[in-house]
């Protein structure tokens, strides 16, 4: 028994020893899959954790919070809240995000707090002191506390001044104390400043307004009953929730974005599984004789199968460990791109370090191991089923034992399944069936590869008969003879390529659509914004007089003041936008699903209606002509929907109305953006200067039409920067797949090569056959990858994006993708084929033909 185990282990060791290259490649394959998965997941988790930490840190000990989107609410409501049953104490908050002047990209979360109420909620610790901070120092005007890490990074000390962009103004504050990174000072990774609530209200033009009230309840009071109690006494546009609710909202907001990343990381694992499957099948073939000897010595089939599964687990384990290390390193890179994208799309976030997350690490390791196991199952069972005779006599290794017809049938079945899944609706707002369709598409395509190879080799056999040299025939015979194994490599490459091409088509189509949309809808000649506007999450308002002043400038034909407010609508956040519909109707343009822009806008204004973005229409099932109820600070109001317009921003959708209607319900909220239309003879440069002068030194930006368009596309491109990682994965997989397959088949074909050389094949001919084989495998993978990619793109565009974001994307096939991907694949294949080809051409004939 012991000796049998030893014999088995010896065989295992031999396998590794005899094919170090292939063993290394397998470990690498698994490693890369796991690394990609771990990197993306770790980055994801770090971002989410950072969001949560900020929310939790600021929430402190409160059991309930009262908020009202960006509108905020009147501070007199604080009295109502305090008087409510069950409320022990209530702390008002003014929350603002302010860019730091002179330090581009740096942002502070500014907390305006009521010093008297704070103690029960949050604890602050001043640097250099042991006891809690005496918040009274903050009562001095223009004063703030700064978190110590931020001050240290920027070389600031107590007594120094710091200038913040508060809306369109610059304001200087004196630093009166440094906060230890504890409690709220941990928010936004230490990018925090603390002010007295009055200072904050004044600085940010929020006099008399609050953003939030935090509540601590009496011990006997139930959270839910108190919440119900409050809902009855407070206006409807206020949201009462537990602090966790905010976390859930963040998760919801990021869900769609994260799903795309998750899909990416899942694909890398699938591809890794292909590589493992491939390697193990080969390792079984290569060790037939050893298996035969073991079986004849009385080792059972089950033990043989267990041996190969064991080998897979060992390789999978080593590869996964390596992948974790690599993934951790990669995560830093991914984190940068991800947090930049999120900052652009959803709100400012500062994530500096990848967090070690044991759950992610364990998951990645487990997935690496289980995909190794899954991939090993078939080849291992095959090894176990080999009879002694089959194993010992290579002549019995029937080369045509695979059943391509059966596999193809199964493949077609899966493809029909994919079609069915792509016709299903979203589950919640998650395109679950869309992802099922993607997976079925890839698997179905993979199962068709043996048939495709057969057809391909048939074509080459026919073609090869017309080309002298015999290599065509040899190539065709290899392709069909070893199609079982080649199919795996082609399938792996096809998957990676298909994903690459599918994403490229989707992104290309998306970009094309956005370009048209930008071209059609950004009509203003100049756009005036507060300098802080482009930091997401900053509520920046232009000086109130600016609009009238600009309108009065000679050469300016019309001005459309735009206000955007985040409000809660049917449990989700969206952007409520107000503009001058008459100006937009006359000079600007929106793209509506149906109907003429000017007519709809004028109609909306006349009937006091709203227009909604496609996303809102899809998420909430609203149609043109419906009445929609919105909670305004003055109570609920109902608005008719005059039209649905295309919109490709990620604010969770938009509802727009004319300014006058907006002002009636929401009051004067300030202007965020001025769209300026010039007379035909006005010079934009001159006008820019005049507008800046009208701003009287306010921190405003004047952008030209084409600058804004460029900016929008820049943000778009950045959003998809993450997917570039996939390109690299695809290339590596293609290379690994080909290298692995060819290396193994060259090793296995030594004898054939020896015979070939004996009957007069030159080194060059042998070299060419192997290299051409590599090229042809690449070519086939490319052809299949393009077909699969096309369908993947259709699913991505019409199912996944539509269901998760509500965007209509016009499908466009970029012909360049054919050229670039084909070039990439051929180059990679030939490079990967080079070493095996060289090896094959140098095979020692005498050794190769020896029969042992």
């Amino acid at each position, binding site marked *: 028994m012991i000796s049998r185990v030893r014999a088995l282990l010896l065989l295992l060791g031999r396998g590794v020893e005899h094919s170090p290259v292939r063993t290394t490649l397998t470990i690498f394959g698994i490693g890369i899959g796991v690394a990609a998965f771990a990197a993306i997941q770790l980055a994801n988790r770090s971002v989410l954790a950072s969001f949560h930490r900020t929310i939790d840190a600021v929430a402190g000990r409160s059991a309930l919070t009262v908020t009202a989107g960006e509108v905020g609410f009147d501070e007199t409501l604080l009295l109502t809240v305090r008087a409510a049953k069950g409320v022990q104490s209530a702390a008002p908050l003014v929350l603002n995000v302010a860019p730091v002047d002179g330090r581009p990209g740096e942002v502070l979360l500014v907390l305006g707090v009521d010093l008297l109420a704070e103690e029960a909620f949050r604890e602050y610790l001043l640097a250099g002191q042991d006891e809690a901070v005496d918040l009274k120092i903050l009562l001095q005007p223009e004063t703030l506390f700064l978190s110590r890490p931020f001050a240290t990074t920027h070389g600031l000390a107590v007594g120094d001044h710091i200038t913040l962009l508060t809306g369109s103004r610059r304001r200087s504050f004196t630093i009166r104390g440094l906060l230890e990174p504890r409690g709220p000072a941990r928010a936004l990774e230490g990018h925090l400043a603390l002010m007295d609530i009055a200072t904050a209200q004044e600085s940010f033009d929020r006099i008399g307004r609050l953003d939030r009230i935090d509540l601590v309840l009496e011990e006997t009071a139930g959270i839910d009953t108190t919440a119900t109690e409050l809902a009855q006494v407070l206006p409807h546009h206020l949201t009462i929730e537990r602090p966790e609710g905010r976390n859930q909202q963040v998760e919801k907001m990021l869900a769609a974005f994260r799903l795309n990343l998750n899909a990416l990381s899942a694909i890398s694992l699938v591809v890794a599984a292909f590589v493992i499957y491939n390697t193990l099948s080969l390792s079984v073939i290569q060790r037939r004789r050893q298996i035969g000897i073991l079986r004849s010595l009385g080792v059972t089939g089950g033990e043989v199968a267990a041996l190969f599964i064991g080998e897979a687990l060992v390789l999978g384990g080593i590869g996964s460990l390596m992948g974790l290390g690599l993934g951790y390193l990669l995560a830093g890179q991914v984190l940068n791109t991800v947090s930049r994208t999120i900052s652009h799309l959803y709100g400012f976030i500062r994530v500096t370090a990848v967090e070690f997350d044991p759950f992610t690490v364990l998951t990645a390791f487990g997935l690496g191991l289980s995909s190794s196991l899954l991939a090993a199952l078939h080849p291992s069972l095959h090894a176990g089923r080999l009879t002694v005779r089959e194993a010992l006599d*290579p*002549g*019995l*290794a*029937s*080369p*045509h034992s695979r059943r391509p017809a059966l596999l193809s049938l199964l493949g077609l079945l899966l493809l029909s399944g994919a079609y069915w899944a792509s016709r299903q609706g979203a589950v919640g707002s998650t395109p679950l069936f869309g992802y099922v369709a993607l997976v079925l598409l890839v698997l179905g395509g993979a199962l068709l590869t043996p048939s495709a190879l057969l057809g391909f080799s048939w074509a080459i056999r026919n073609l090869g*008969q*017309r080309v*002298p*040299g*015999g290599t065509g*025939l*040899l190539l065709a*015979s*290899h392709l*069909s*003879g*070893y199609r079982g194994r080649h199919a795996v490599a082609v399938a792996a490459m096809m998957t990676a390529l298909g994903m690459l091409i599918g994403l490229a088509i989707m992104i290309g189509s998306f970009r094309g659509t956005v370009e048209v949309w930008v071209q059609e809808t950004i009509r203003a000649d100049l756009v005036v914004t507060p300098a802080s506007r482009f930091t997401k999450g900053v509520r920046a308002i232009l000086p109130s007089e600016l609009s009238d002043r600009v309108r009065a400038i000679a050469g300016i034909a019309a001005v459309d003041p735009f206000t955007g407010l985040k409000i809660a609508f049917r449990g989700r956040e969206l952007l409520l936008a107000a503009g001058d519909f008459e100006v937009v109707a006359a000079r600007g343009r929106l793209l509506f699903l149906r109907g003429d822009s000017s007519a709809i806008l004028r109609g909306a204004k006349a009937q006091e209606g709203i227009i909604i973005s496609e996303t809102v229409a899809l998420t909430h099932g609203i149609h043109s002509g419906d009445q929609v109820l919105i909670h305004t600070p003055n109570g609920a109001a109902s608005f008719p929907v005059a039209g649905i317009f295309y919109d490709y921003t990620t604010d969770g959708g938009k509802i727009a109305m004319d300014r006058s209607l907006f002002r009636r319900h929401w009051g004067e909220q300030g202007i965020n953006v001025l769209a300026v239309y010039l007379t035909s003879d006005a010079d934009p440069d001159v006008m820019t200067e005049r507008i800046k002068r009208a701003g009287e030194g306010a921190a405003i930006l004047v952008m030209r039409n084409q600058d804004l368009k460029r900016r929008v596309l820049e943000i778009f491109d950045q959003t998809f920067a993450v997917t570039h990682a996939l390109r690299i994965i695809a290339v590596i997989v293609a290379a690994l797949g080909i290298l692995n397959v060819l290396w193994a088949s060259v090793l296995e074909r030594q*004898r*054939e090569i*020896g*015979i*070939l*050389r*004996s*009957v*007069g*094949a*030159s*080194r060059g*001919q042998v070299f060419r056959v192997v290299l051409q084989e590599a090229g042809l495998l690449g070519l086939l993978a490319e052809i299949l990858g393009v077909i699969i990619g096309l369908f993947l793109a259709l699913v991505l565009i019409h199912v996944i994006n539509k269901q998760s974001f509500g965007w209509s994307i016009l499908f466009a096939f970029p012909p360049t993708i054919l050229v670039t991907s084909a070039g990439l694949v051929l180059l990679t294949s030939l490079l990967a084929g080079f070493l095996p080809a060289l090896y094959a051409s140098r095979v*020692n*004939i*005498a050794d190769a*033909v*020896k*029969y042992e």
Partner: protein
Amino acid sequence: MRTPPIIHLEQVTKSYDKGPQPILALQGVSLEIRRGEFVAVMGPSGCGKSTMLHLMAGIDRPTSGEIGFEGKPFSAMDETQLTRLRRERVGIVYQLYNLLPHLTLGENVALPLLLAGSLLRDVQQRVAEAIQGLDLTERINHWPHQLSGGEMQRAAVARAVITRPSLLLADEPTGNLDSKAGEAVLTLLQTLNRQEGYTVVLATHSQQAASYAQRIVHLRDGRILE
């Protein structure tokens, strides 16, 4: 009358140094084989027969000594020239698995012509002629794994002579065949020698097989017994 030797070995030594101690597979072997001869190299397993045939085919090089083909020394030929030699002047048959598993019998036989630059459809006729009388005509489109051992070896012989080489080397061609199939292959070699004038070198451990040859060279431990 002495015809000039088609191949000659002069003090040829071959040693393998890969293992713990060097193995001397051939030690100072000198031999001349003349055009039209049928020579059997006979000896027990491990005596160096295969090594000798490999050296004659130019698929391996001697450690010392010289081998010449029609007077031209191998040491003066590079890999390309040796490849040409194998393609045009020397045919080889091994003990087992001579046929490429993913080509049909016909394609296997045609292979040397294809490698030399011919198109398959142009050589069909020649292949058909080559296997005529070998009882293989019906098997021309079969895969190797569908053939019997005797059929495979006969096809290998047909392939070895399809380019009409000067020298036919057969290394234990009957080693894995039953006696009836073995006899058929040996008779085939004899016919090729007698009727078509091929020079044949047969390596074998069997006295019975060697008896088909005109001359027998006995090999023991890498030396020729006189």
